[in-house]
């Protein structure tokens, strides 16, 4: 009993002195609580469906950021990992009858393997070459999918997978908690030594190599890690939609991932997640609003594109970093973040200018 009290006290202390002092940390806390508490507020079938898809895409966008934002390996074909995993999961589930908790990790392993296969030719390429080459892979795969409809189901895809779990609320909890956990893991990776090396590769690969880092190995590692997380998203998607179709490989999805991530703010795992959680529900709200005006032509995607264009025109760093810079400032002496209205740093007491 005493241990519990002691731990609670320590938790509260951390909460007060570390979390509540910064608006961004409070925002993350509120976000996590809101995600976990949503089914208590509403169990609407449609809302939960949107939130499940949002959390799946949040994993995907964060995994893109791990590869393209942190390591600087601009990937235009992130749908490849998503699609490969969706198809592998579907094939395993349909042909061998694997349950979801078994087929999704195997699908993710398939995506890791793809990451290796794609990563090896891509190691020699840089910048725009890399971006444009990675764009090619999902399109090649899509051509193959269409050409052998016997195995892949062609244009219709593979349908009739086992349900993720029995009920909608359970589905929601599985995907949302996975999103939070995987997001946390990715954030931890970028914060670790490995993450710093990935950072260094993006900033100056030659310098990183000169410092004795095997950049090839780390770039491949980034491809595999990113493929793994994107693969889990793909497997979840296949089991949730009970369908793995060519739409999981489309250029549109690859572009969408980049749009979400850059809109939310690259090189920060929370940015892409926030980007998805803002844009995806917004699109659905927009659909509901526009349904009230049946005379209008279909203009959802137009509004979406215009919104993205205008946001980036005025906040080219992305939405979340822009907001964060508004409410927080960095101490000039010890580089610790503070609330914008503080006069002196909360750690070293230096005057904030």
């Amino acid at each position, binding site marked *: 009993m005493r241990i519990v009290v002691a731990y609670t006290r320590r938790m509260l202390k951390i909460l007060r002195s570390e979390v509540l002092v910064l608006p961004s940390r409070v925002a993350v806390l509120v976000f996590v609580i809101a995600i976990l508490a949503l089914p208590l507020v509403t169990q609407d079938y449609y809302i939960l469906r949107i939130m499940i898809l949002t959390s799946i895409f949040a994993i995907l966008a964060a995994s893109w950021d791990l590869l393209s934002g942190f390591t600087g390996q601009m990937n235009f074909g992130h749908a490849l990992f998503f699609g490969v995993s969706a198809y592998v999961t579907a094939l395993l589930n349909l042909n061998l009858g694997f349950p979801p908790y078994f087929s999704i990790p195997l699908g993710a392993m398939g995506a890791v393997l793809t990451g290796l296969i794609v990563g090896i030719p891509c190691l020699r390429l840089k910048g725009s070459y890399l971006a*444009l080459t990675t764009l*090619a892979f999902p399109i090649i795969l899509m051509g*193959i999918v*269409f*050409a052998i409809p016997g195995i892949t189901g062609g244009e219709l895809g593979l349908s009739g997978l086992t349900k993720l779990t029995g009920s909608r609320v359970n589905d929601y909890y599985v995907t949302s908690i996975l999103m939070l956990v995987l997001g946390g893991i990715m954030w931890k990776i970028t914060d670790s030594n490995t993450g710093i090396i990935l950072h260094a590769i993006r900033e100056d690969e030659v310098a990183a190599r000169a410092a004795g880092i095997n950049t090839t190995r780390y770039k491949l590692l980034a491809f595999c890690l990113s493929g793994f997380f994107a693969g889990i998203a793909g497997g979840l998607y296949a089991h949730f939609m009970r369908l793995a179709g060519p739409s999981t490989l489309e250029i549109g999805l690859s572009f969408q991932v*980049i749009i979400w991530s850059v809109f939310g703010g690259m090189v920060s795992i929370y940015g892409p997640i926030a980007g998805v959680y803002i844009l995806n529900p917004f699109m659905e709200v927009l659909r509901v609003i526009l349904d009230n005006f049946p005379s209008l032509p279909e203009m959802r995607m137009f509004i979406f594109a*215009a919104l993205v264009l205008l946001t980036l025109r005025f906040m080219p760093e992305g939405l979340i970093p822009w907001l964060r810079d508004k409410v927080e400032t960095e101490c000039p002496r010890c580089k610790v973040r503070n609330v914008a209205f503080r006069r002196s740093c909360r750690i070293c007491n230096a005057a904030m200018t």
Partner: protein
Amino acid sequence: MIVDILIDGLIKGSVYALLAIGFSLVLGVARIVNIAHTALYMTSAYLIYVGTKMMGLPTIVSMVAAVFLTILLGLLIYNYFIRPIQEHEAAMLISTIAVAMMLQEVFLMIFGGHYLGVNPLVRGYLTVLGVRVTNQHLLALGLAIIVLISTRFFLMKTRTGLAIRATAQDREVANLMGMNVNGVAMITMAVSVGLASIAGAIVVPLVTVEPTMWMHPLVMMLAIVVLGGLGSLEGSFVGAYILGFSESLVVFMVPMGSFLKDSVALSIMILVLLIRPEGLFGVSFEEER
């Protein structure tokens, strides 16, 4: 069959060459990966449709008007949405994607997803080696080649062309030599969009006009530019014909070919990159300073 493949490949190659040269000019001079490039090509096609079918203008007039309007649109987009965020590469990239999506959605809203067509400029056909080739195909081929040659002349022989090439080679030094780099970028954008819209005008009688017609040329164009080497004009030219011919070969010869045409073209690109990472004619780019 062989003549079919030859004509088809030549036309496709020429159109891709027009698109790819424009794209790699902008990439070289302004460092913009302009995803909206083929969306502007689509814009010109739609404007020609509006001119000929809705307003009843003669085809030639509407083509010229469409080219100028598209150039104007491209410059406006560049000036107000791309240039202010030039320092942020990713944001610039997304902005061009967003522009392309907006154009697609605008056409979807106005015209719906229907397949539209434009009357050919000339009618009738010639018989070449026992195969019927419409005059429109021959005209398209001739026009494309004329435009390609004049682009080459413009880039190689005029002072403006020299400025464009110099800026593409080294932006900073060009700036130090007293060139107005932003002005050059503006001109380059105009030339590039002009090439895209001319390509649109050339192919519009041969293809169906629909709101997603920019996707396939986009993929091919990106593959060509990478295959030929980024920023290399000869590379874009040669790459365009390689991929143009391979596409028509696959479509005509392989069963299920129309599904595999992208896959084959892109596999060729990846194979070339495995052997030569900087593309066929590419000089490995100096790191940006």
